[in-house]
């Protein structure tokens, strides 16, 4: 069957978007395995000591952070939706809001760390705080990396690089951001609540 020019163009873009999304899923799979190492160690050490290593953490800030990240995950989903519809202004606004929420998350994290340091609690204090700093530290690194890339994409979006057929980077960013949020969703009860 003879394909019209832009139909083959759209087919080619969809094929490339499939390829990139599959690559993103694989990368997220390897990130899952990265946090598997930490979760396995935490579960083992905690259950072998029958929970005696658990120290109290600031539950309020933890819950606040969870709400912030879930909201940013929501706004990111709307940004991806906007980019698929070709709505440049919507994309710029929603992704900007997501970026701000990410920075707020890091600020709350900073406050929590400052609280710990002021009380003289460091990773070397005890095994639970070692895991606390390990988990939240590497999660924060992933958030920072995500914010850097999102910032670059925000400027490109403002410049109008993305349209209805070419919005793969936004979609990849969406997948990555949802993943970072999911890691926190599992991390929050493990460290703060139980």
């Amino acid at each position, binding site marked *: 069957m003879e394909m019209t020019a832009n139909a*083959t163009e759209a087919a080619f873009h969809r094929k490339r978007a499939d390829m990139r999304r599959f690559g993103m899923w694989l990368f997220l*799979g*390897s990130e899952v395995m990265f*946090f*598997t190492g930490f979760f396995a160690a935490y579960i083992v050490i905690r259950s072998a000591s029958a929970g005696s290593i658990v120290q109290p953490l600031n539950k309020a800030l933890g819950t606040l952070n969870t709400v912030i990240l879930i909201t940013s995950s929501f706004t990111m989903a709307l940004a991806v939706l906007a980019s698929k519809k070709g709505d440049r202004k919507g994309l710029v606004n929603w992704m900007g809001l997501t970026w701000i929420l990410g920075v707020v998350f890091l600020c709350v994290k900073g406050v929590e760390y400052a609280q710990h340091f002021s009380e003289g609690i460091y990773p*070397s204090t005890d095994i639970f705080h*070692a895991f606390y700093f390990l988990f939240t530290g590497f999660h924060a690194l992933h958030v920072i990396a995500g914010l850097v890339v999102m910032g670059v994409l925000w400027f490109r979006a403002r410049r109008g690089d993305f349209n209805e057929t070419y919005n793969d980077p936004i979609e990849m960013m969406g997948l990555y951001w949802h993943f970072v949020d999911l890691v926190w969703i599992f991390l929050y009860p493990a460290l703060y609540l139980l």
Partner: protein
Amino acid sequence: MSEQTISGTTAEAPHAGGGGHHHPQPTSFFRRYVWSYDHKVVGKQYLITSLCFMLLGGGLAMLLRWQIAYPFVPVPFIGHWLKGMFFFGNNGAITPEGYLELGAMHGLVMIFFVVIPLIVGGFGNFLIPLHIGAEDVSFPMLNALSYWLYAAASVPMLLSFFVDKGAAAAGWTNYPPLSDIAGASPSSLGLTLVLVAIYLAGFSSILGGVNFLVTIAKLRAPGMTWGRLPLLTWAQFITAVFQCLATPMLAAGASMLIFDRVFHTSFFLPSGLMVGGAAAANSGGGYPLLWQHIFWFYAHPAVYILILPTMGIASEILTTFSRKPVFGYKAMVISLASIMGLGFIVWGHHMFVSGMNPMLGMAFMVSTIFIALPSGVKVFNWLGTLWGGNIRFDSPMLFALGFISMFIIGGLSGIFMASTPADIYLHDTYYIIAHFHYIVFGATIFAVFGGISFWFPKFFGRMMNEPLAKLHWLLTLVFFNLTFFPMHFLGEAGHMRRLATSTDYEFLNSLAGLNVFITWSAYYLGLSQLIFVFNFFHSMFYGKKATENPWQGNTLEWTLPSPVPYYNFDVPPVVYRGPYEYSSEEAGDKDWISQSTPPVPGMTPAKH
């Protein structure tokens, strides 16, 4: 996966790989050879860098052997020049601390900086797009990034030699608390640098794995179904799964170990440690075995990363030079898949006597015993391929035959360690060293030499010198066996691993002669590699000009001019048959027919 039928003429998308070309052809030297997106250039960069690191790794091994054969005797020449530096004491002899550094760095360099980059980065990058008929890998920029991450990883590794207290000295496995507490192992900053180096090399390996998985899954030429993939591409696919999903566990373990060393946390340090009379400054609460579980969860898939691609290379060479289809293509793919499945659940056989619960020892014994099956099936299929073939003995085929025979010995000597009671005695002895050198040197490196001379026309457009390659094969095979087979006897006699000298033990007294014998055969083995080094670099410029298909192979890369042009296939190939249709009636008088030759009307096309 959508089964792409033989769509004949009009392919659905103009280019299987993409609309316009992925990336414009670069002109400046920097973009053509240094920061290049072309998978062929990245492949060659990996190839040459890892071959250079092999010289470093080999050199470290030679120093090791000197200390084992002549303990604390000043090393001639080098010991005199480098007195008091690196591994040498003031009298030019290797110090006990220096011996540990040699051992650890030999292991680390050979695994992370030689074998994985060579067979996955070098052969994988160069050949996967050619074998599946694609223009380039899925993410070319990521490909260049993963090479330069690997190159960046070598900086902290090399730096660790020059740092005070020397390089890592806790074995390539870095078991805590030795690798963890400050005073325990001689090295301090050097070990942290090496952990950072492993971190970067692991990250490059993960990106490479993602890249290859997506390339093989999504960029196959029309007609190249999963059943028509060459076995090297299947092997790289399974290796990429291991790389992508197992390496992050090493990153997690290394992060925790770096936290322990830098921030004095104690993930792997129990409370109440006493080092050198003083209580170790750590808060305790961790478990040393935790590191072993996390490390070996990665490291066993890693040793499969070391062997699977070369199984693919051997399959390619064996079929091409036996002029005969591979025996049991489906069985080979099923055994690869079962190695992937089992490879993740056997790591406990490294820990039978490490204090792991014996019930788990039993469970891991069962899974380890049955992982010998897929390898066995592959060996029998290789022999089936040779059976009834019309074998030509060029240098690639000689190396592939060396691969099979050494892999048989290595595989069989592995069965001793799978049975836990025998492993009680053989663990951490030279028996283990003999086993894994037969696999990693006897099998992998032989297949690498075979692969290099087989695809040299595609790499550099020239042929390697055949007589020199055959001489190198003969010397390497002989001296390899003289070096590593006696290690089985050392291990059987109970000679422990990583001993700077065995003179303290009366029960090892009778083995001193054997150690000297092994050392000298190791030196001859090292010397005979110079033949390859000369042949490799000389033929690159002065070798005989190569035709398009010097070995009459079927796979797609042999339909391209050598060396391969920038965009590989000017028009995307359409595949009509499997890669191994040698001596089929469809081929008529000549005994090969390329995958992309359209079927002759009236002839029954190949079954699948």
